[in-house]
């Protein structure tokens, strides 16, 4: 049956996008459209004494200026996402304080970039001029910029009435950790730091909101990754029923999870358009993106490790500080995903974790491609390398001894996943993936080559990291498949497409089930008008949840076609097959009904088989029981110049397992993008604050994205361990590539500089980090 799934079909969306026919937020223009811009806090932590917008309001071309006082019923907190499930509350009794975002600052600002006022003007230039005319008087307060300082008694508090800045505190434990440390052959401790960086889409966040002529609702052309969620939040804020608000995705110039959270603008712009009765567009500029879109990754792990004499991990103690930024927007996601991704693919028999998410005067943290996973992957792989060094074992041998074996699957580490269901690694062959990766990169012959190069003064290093990846989180996603009277097929789903190739992959899935060319299938994504329910695009979930929903909806249409044709042709259903856009009698292909004919025969009023509803238009929701776990092994060879600290990647190999591959071409593109993002984070990208809480990296001159010159050829090998948890056997792949690079490159740089005794326990691996590590190692050796 399956013909197209698994083939490298070219992307259906590309001709349109490559010919410049995309419709991004920037491209959307309608008559009478106004432009919004936002007055943002210049201070990291301050009381707002006064806002004087009178000059700005009088400025030519300014239509309105809104401050907190003007918001009316929208003076309410913005909904957060990723609530803590009841089961986790019960299991660990986390302490959570409410630190929500409001559409505009009330009396206090807590980060540079926090929205204070909204200006609506006739065009973007006028709006930019007007921003300077809004006079805000601040009374600066002491900023909290460092997370360790933030939990100290001497720190300022971001919220009045709190005795500290801890927004979330969760203690997790399983196994007998104390006994493990008592009996361990060796124990050691380390501090691992993941620095702050984030997603940088080509196009920032934005939307165009068009009020209905009736004044009773609106259409929001949005770049939000969760249009149904965006609609729900707008409806709640403005007091509108869902039928009055349509949220529909424009072409989205990259999302990376950053566009999955709700931001002040997501409410403010609909509010302004509704209030003014005129279309309003807002599109973030680059500087705004850095100070107003979520940051990610900043975590500090103080880890104690207990191992036996063979290098087998017995227990971990981890004290974690998460530098949250100014508000708690995704309560559980970042800490919990980091933790879960430390519990695989290696066995961790016993664990205590004490995690505190700490408010600081920085941009709020939220998921970005990986969403806590890379930080966990960094810790557990650095631990494996450290075990090797402690016991004089090859770090790959340490990995072999600790990797979960296929015969142990399904494997339960012993905690709940963040959706509240037990965490179960459902499938995978981690040891085989490791061996394939080592073979591909030539690990065994590398050591001789490395030694030879060292003799010539050239320092090469190799690093490897293994990771699991939770994908396809539920609870559900839906799809609707409709055959119309022309015989063409439309597939609707609420998830957005911001580069993942959904138009192509869902056409493949649907085409295989319906036996029709994918050219006859159009996939329409991210529109609340087309399907009742949707969660959206995040957590590497769409192939799993929406992919299976498309499969199920196509299955429903398929069985309806058979029943209808059986009735019309007066043959038994089992004698029919659906192929080449027809339902036909097996062995008598000329006795057939085309899809168009079937659609015409199924209209309301037509003579339908008993109990059959009219129309070839079926919706299915796939309910995911929990996540399904992908995995990967990455390896890199680097050259490090110990005199300048410069790091160059010479080779990069990925063995990747995301279950059944729907489209290998698109999958490799996903991996390339993820690895490039991971390399950028490991080597270059860094959001740096000064001691006053001013972000120093607000341009592409200071925030260094990797370019084509910084990314090596990425060699990809696929492993296919099908998921037992869904009909298609797929696992997600969107984020996976970004998880391992920081761990891989830290290991490789450390290995290259092993003759100097260098330790790398932090990122990014720029000259500052590398030269400091060299100096530190030199000082240690002298002492």
């Amino acid at each position, binding site marked *: 049956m399956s013909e197209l799934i698994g083939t490298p079909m070219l992307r259906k969306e590309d001709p349109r996008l490559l010919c410049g026919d995309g419709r991004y937020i920037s491209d959307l223009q309608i008559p009478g459209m106004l432009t919004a811009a936002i007055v943002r806090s210049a201070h990291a932590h301050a009381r707002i004494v006064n806002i004087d917008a009178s000059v700005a309001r009088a400025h030519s071309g300014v239509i309105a200026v809104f401050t907190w006082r003007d918001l009316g019923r929208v003076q309410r907190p913005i909904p957060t996402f990723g609530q803590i499930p009841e089961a986790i509350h019960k299991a660990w009794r986390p302490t959570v304080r409410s630190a929500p975002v409001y559409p505009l600052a009330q009396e206090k600002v807590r980060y540079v970039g926090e929205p204070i006022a909204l200006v609506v003007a006739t065009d973007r230039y006028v709006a930019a001029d007007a921003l300077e005319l809004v006079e805000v008087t601040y009374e600066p307060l002491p900023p909290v910029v460092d997370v360790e300082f933030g939990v100290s008694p001497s720190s300022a508090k971001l919220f009045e009435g709190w005795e500290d800045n801890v927004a979330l505190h969760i203690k997790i434990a399983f196994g007998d950790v104390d006994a493990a440390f008592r009996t361990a052959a060796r124990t050691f401790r380390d501090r691992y730091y993941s620095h702050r960086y984030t997603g940088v889409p080509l196009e920032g966040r934005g939307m165009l909101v068009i009020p209905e002529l009736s004044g009773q609702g609106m259409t929001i052309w949005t770049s939000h990754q969760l249009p149904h969620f965006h609609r729900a939040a707008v409806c709640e804020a403005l007091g509108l029923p869902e039928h009055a608000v349509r949220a529909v995705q424009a072409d989205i110039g990259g999302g990376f999870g950053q566009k999955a959270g709700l931001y002040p603008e997501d409410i403010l712009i609909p509010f302004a358009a509704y209030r003014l009765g005129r279309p309003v567009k807002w599109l973030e500029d680059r500087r705004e993106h850095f100070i107003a879109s979520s940051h990610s990754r900043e975590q500090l792990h103080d880890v104690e490790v207990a191992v036996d004499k063979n290098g087998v991990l017995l227990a971990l103690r981890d004290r974690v500080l998460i530098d949250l930024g100014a508000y708690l927007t995704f309560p559980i996601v970042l800490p919990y995903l980091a933790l879960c991704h430390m519990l695989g693919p290696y066995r961790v028999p016993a664990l205590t974790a004490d995690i505190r998410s700490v408010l600081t005067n920085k941009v709020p943290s939220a998921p970005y491609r990986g969403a806590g996973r890379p930080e966990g992957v960094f810790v557990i792989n650095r631990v494996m390398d450290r075990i090797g060094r402690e016991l004089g074992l090859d770090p790959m041998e340490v990995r072999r001894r600790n990797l979960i074996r296929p015969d142990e699957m399904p494997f339960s580490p012993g905690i709940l996943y963040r959706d509240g269901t037990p965490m179960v690694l459902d499938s995978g062959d981690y040891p085989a993936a490791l061996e394939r990766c080592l073979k591909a990169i030539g690990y065994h012959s590398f050591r001789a080559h490395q030694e030879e190069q060292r003799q010539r003064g050239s320092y090469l290093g190799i690093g490897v990291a293994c990771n699991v990846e939770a994908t396809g989180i539920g609870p559900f996603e839906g799809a609707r498949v409709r055959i119309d009277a022309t015989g063409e097929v439309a597939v609707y789903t609420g998830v957005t497409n911001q580069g993942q190739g959904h138009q192509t992959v869902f056409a493949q899935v649907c085409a295989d089930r319906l036996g029709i060319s994918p050219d006859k299938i159009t996939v329409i994504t991210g529109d609340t008008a087309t399907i009742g329910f949707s969660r959206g695009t995040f957590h590497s979930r769409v192939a799993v949840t929406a992919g299976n929903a498309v499969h199920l909806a196509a299955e429903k249409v398929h069985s309806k076609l058979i029943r209808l044709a059986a009735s019309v042709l007066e043959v038994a259903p089992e004698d029919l097959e659906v192929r080449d856009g027809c339902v036909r009698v097996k062995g008598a292909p000329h006795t057939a009904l085309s899809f168009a004919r079937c659609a015409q025969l199924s209209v309301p009023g037509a003579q339908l088989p008993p109990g059959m509803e009219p129309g070839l238009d079926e919706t299915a929701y796939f309910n995911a029981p929990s996540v399904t776990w992908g995995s990967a092994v990455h390896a890199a060879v680097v050259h490090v110049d110990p005199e300048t600290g410069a790091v160059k990647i010479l080779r990069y190999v990925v063995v990747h397992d995301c279950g059944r591959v729907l489209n290998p071409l698109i999958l490799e593109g996903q991996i390339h993008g993820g690895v490039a993002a991971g390399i950028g984070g490991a080597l270059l990208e860094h959001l740096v604050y000064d001691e006053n809480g001013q972000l120093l990296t607000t341009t592409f*001159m200071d925030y260094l994205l990797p370019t084509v010159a910084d990314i090596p050829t990425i060699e990809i090998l696929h492993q296919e361990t099908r998921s037992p948890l869904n009909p298609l056997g797929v696992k997600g792949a969107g984020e996976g590539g970004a998880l391992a690079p920081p761990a891989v490159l830290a290991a490789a740089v450390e290995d290259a500089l092993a003759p100097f005794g260098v330790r790398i326990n932090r990122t990014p691996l720029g000259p500052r980090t590398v030269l400091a590590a060299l100096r530190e190692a030199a000082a240690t050796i002298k002492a």
Partner: protein
Amino acid sequence: MRPAPFDYYVPTSFEEALDLLKRLGPDARILAGGQSLIPLMNFRLARPAALIDLARLLDLNGIMIQDGHATIGAMVTHAQIEHSRELQRSQPLLPAAARYIGHEAIRNRGTLGGSLAHADPLAEWPAVVTVLGGRIKAVSLHGSRWIAAPDFFIGPLMTMLAPDEVITEVEVPVLGASTGWSFQELARRPGDFALVGIAVVVTLDRREKVADLRVSVVGGGIPNFVPPIMWDGILGRPAEDGVLQEAAMRVSEALAPPEDIHATAADRRQIARVLTFRALKEATARARSRSDPG
């Protein structure tokens, strides 16, 4: 990221440009490529009331080699210098350094005169023109004058140019006999501003001893030229590794480099030492190959 309002003028003659500059006063700025000025304006860090665009003044767009000198018009782009066959032959340090300026799109628009007038301590041209012993011609309605490169730069983003003066051309000597050059630069990514860049010109005497040594530093602050007095005890010695190491150490110690998010001052001093040594090695090797064994 929208500039504040400004007026825009495109003079078609040099006289018109000078007239405009005088008439519009110090709030007007010359636009000579705009690869630094326009981003600053978009961030509203620069707010000139008017821009005078020299793009149509084709007289400022030539490269000429004559009488042992290369003369380069102020509006010659970095890319033109990079790809100039004449310069690759007669003064190859210029095309070699040009390759380190930004990316191709920037090099296609940015100009030599614009960069010199902007006097960014992280730019390549102030260091290169200085190390070559070049001079810069400044013209106003009152006449013209030549300013030697080390004197031209008086501080970061500050030059000897009077408000009504415009750079028209730059003159550097062509590469001499027994003279070698090198340009070394380290940046976070290809095309980024340098962490440190080193421009070197070395002349050897007939016994392969160091007869003359000139070093400028990109990112070492402005002035960026290492004063000749630093070479006491180096000149006259053989161009061997030990001597070159000592010279590199002196450069490193003479610097007061800035600290920023990419590197500490100590990192930059170390990188400057390493790059200076590598540059001196390369330059002396080139000098040897250009010596006439006669």
